[in-house]
């Protein structure tokens, strides 16, 4: 079963130089992070949706649609409740919701969701090895770069193990769908034990395997993947930089003030 997010295609986005991809996703992260209002996030969201479409990453959006929707709804809800509104509809305990709170909550929800979507875009169009290569080219030591990508390499394995464990328990009459939603979540707790033990064992074995294949070795490394720098990459980096600068400027009131 395929568990990684990478979608093996050859779209223009896939073909970009990994450093350009990293620059691009960093710019999207910055823009998402600095956006102050839904008005500022909306064009960014449109851009990310367009890029997801251009990168044939739609299947991943489908896979994560409930997650993205949940993040959006929960963030809106929580911030609406906890925002200290200047003109609250009502006040009850720590809750002072009001119209400005709703506006702020939407801004936060957009911020978080575009953040996730940008990450999804990056992982859908970038191999984990390309990510490590990009980090190396940007001066990050190879070992550190590998460690940074390790999470993305291990998560699919853990998900895979978790699926097996859930199936094995269902086989023995365990009904995950019984009871109310919090009971159902509680039912998944026993899954953690074997997954965690498996994870530890696996991490241990992987460390040995890495070592046996020369990972701790000092000296020059080469790359199996060859990257040519093309005009499209330069353009992508320039656009990414422009996007980040524009959004920071906009956020600091440059566009309106």
């Amino acid at each position, binding site marked *: *079963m*395929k*568990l*990684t997010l*990478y979608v*093996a295609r050859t779209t223009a986005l896939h073909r970009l130089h990994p450093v350009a991809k990293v620059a691009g996703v960093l710019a999207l992260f910055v823009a998402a992070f600095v956006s102050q209002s839904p008005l500022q996030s909306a064009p960014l969201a449109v851009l990310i949706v367009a890029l997801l479409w251009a990168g044939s990453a739609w299947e991943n959006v489908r896979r994560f649609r409930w997650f993205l929707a949940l993040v959006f709804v929960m963030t809106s809800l929580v911030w609406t409740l906890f925002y200290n509104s200047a003109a609250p509809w009502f006040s009850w305990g720590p809750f002072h919701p009001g119209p400005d709170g709703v506006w702020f909550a939407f801004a936060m929800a957009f911020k978080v969701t575009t953040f996730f979507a940008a990450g999804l875009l990056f992982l859908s169009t970038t*191999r*984990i*090895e390309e990510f490590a290569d990009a980090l190396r080219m940007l001066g990050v030591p190879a070992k550190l770069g590998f460690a940074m990508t*390790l999470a993305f*390499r*291990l998560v*699919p*394995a853990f998900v*895979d*193990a978790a699926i*097996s*464990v859930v*199936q*094995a*328990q*269902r*086989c*023995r*009459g*365990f*009904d995950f769908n019984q009871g109310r939603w919090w009971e159902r979540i509680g039912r998944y707790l*026993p*899954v953690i*034990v*074997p997954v965690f*033990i*498996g994870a530890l*064992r*696996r991490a*241990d*074995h*992987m*460390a*040995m*395997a*890495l*070592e*046996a*294949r*020369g*990972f*701790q*070795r000092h*000296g*020059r*490394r*080469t*790359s*199996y*993947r*060859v990257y040519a720098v093309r005009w499209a990459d330069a353009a992508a980096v320039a656009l990414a930089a422009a996007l980040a600068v524009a959004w920071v400027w906009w956020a600091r009131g440059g566009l309106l003030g």
Partner: protein
Amino acid sequence: MRVPKQFVAELRNVSFAYEGARCWALREVEFQVGRGEMVVVMGASGAGKSTLTKLLNRTIPGFQRGELRGEVWLFGQKCEHETVADFAGRVGLVAQDFEAQLFSSAVEHEVAFGLEQFGVPWREMVDRVRAALAAVGLAGFEDRDPATLSGGEKQRLAIAAVLAMEPELLVLDEPTTDLDPAGKEEVLGVINRLRTHGRTLVVVEHETIAAEMADRIVLLCQGRVVAAGTPAEVLRDVALLEHVGVRPPDLAVLARRMRWAAVPRDVEEAVSVLVRSGVPTRAAAAGADRSPRSSVGEIVLAARDVTVQYADAPAPALEQVNVELRAGEFVALLGQNGSGKTTLAKCLSGLLAPQAGTVHVKGQPIVDLPPQRRATLVGYVFQNPDHQIFADRVYDEIAFGPRQVGLPAPEVHERVQEALAAAALIERADDDPFWLNKGERQRLAVASLLALRPEVLLLDEPTTGLDAREQRQVMDLVSALHRTGMTVVMITHTAWLVAEFAERVLLLHRARLVFDGPTTDLFARDDLLECARFRVPPAVQLGRRLGFAVRGIQELLDVLESRGVEQP
């Protein structure tokens, strides 16, 4: 001091105990590998085989600490503070847990990883990746995500990843456990080629087929070297092999019983020796002729036109499969890696709903049944027992199922006791499953389903990675269940298990069911055996040549004895 240049690796009086362990994993071991030599290390689980391999690339004491005594010499150099990295290019170790050795997003990147670390130029790297993949039969898999490969394909990939680095000494710790017969042949072919090219090899194997290719065999028992010599010397010592927990070759067992001076080279030679001693060939079929009981019981499980297509796979995993299983049958599900065996088992157990077709258990659609009801009808033992064990006590692990289906406490207790007894785990009821060995964990996995008393038990490669004794114990448990009337479906690649236990065989080939019939019929179909690359066990072949339908070496010996065959 003599510098042993002729040895690639040498252990001199080496003992090792893992940190926190109560006993020595290796005791006073003397072990040498000469350049260009192939040494096969055999022994039961826990005999110290993996420990020995880890000493050869410095994983011990570099990674796994403990008390190490004696001297380890690698490439004529006495090791003191050397690390794994110091020998990474010269010693290639493919460890037992091959899945944990894969961490790349595509097959070719996985193979290239080691070469990248060593700064191999790009052009050369491309050639070596291609050559390594071709050597293990994975050419054409370059772009595949390793996570989507079958178990056997993953195992070959792990070998290719080390092979590409062209190490002087290649150490393979049980490299064929999860492989189908074809895959085993391929890997053994790879090993043989490497051998003829002068590569030095240390291979840990349970099966004697690989051992027959070796220059030398080293037998380990409880951390000690108990025998070392050529295959002809070591493999003929049936008593010793049985004592250390290695399954002796059929022909060696025959030779000992017949008191022959030498073990026949192959089945043909054994036939001619037997004929000379008065056994008529093509005698009327005698002995334990098995007539399948398939017509006896009622249909318990039926799959009709089952088709499964995984979202990201290029071809269907199952195509229009029709199977009917009757009460009390013992069925073997065979097929190459990736042919759809596990997918079919998951459909039959209701874990996977097919895109097309239906699965009915006792006349009801299985997907409609609530999990509690399904669990009492069909039990599925996973390939990896670690995926299904999660309790911190053996007792609770077994009690989990009965509690889920809502049985009252006294009955839960009764069933747990019964399952513990059946699996020979009574003594370990209060232990943490984490501390059981693999054979015990496998029996615990079976016991935990057994407590639900399902009518059908599906076992996914229940003997993988177990030694001869553990395999025998698991199979004793399974056949005892079968005798109580349980329907058993077993996925396996092990020829002697099929011959000895299965009455009926289902053979999958490229997602389709290509054979469904009595085991003896399959053994007569050379075309199908060739397509599955299934090797009929020598004892069964021998029986067939002589006209006896026998299941294994024991039955063959019994038949010969009843015929009064004397030694020549």
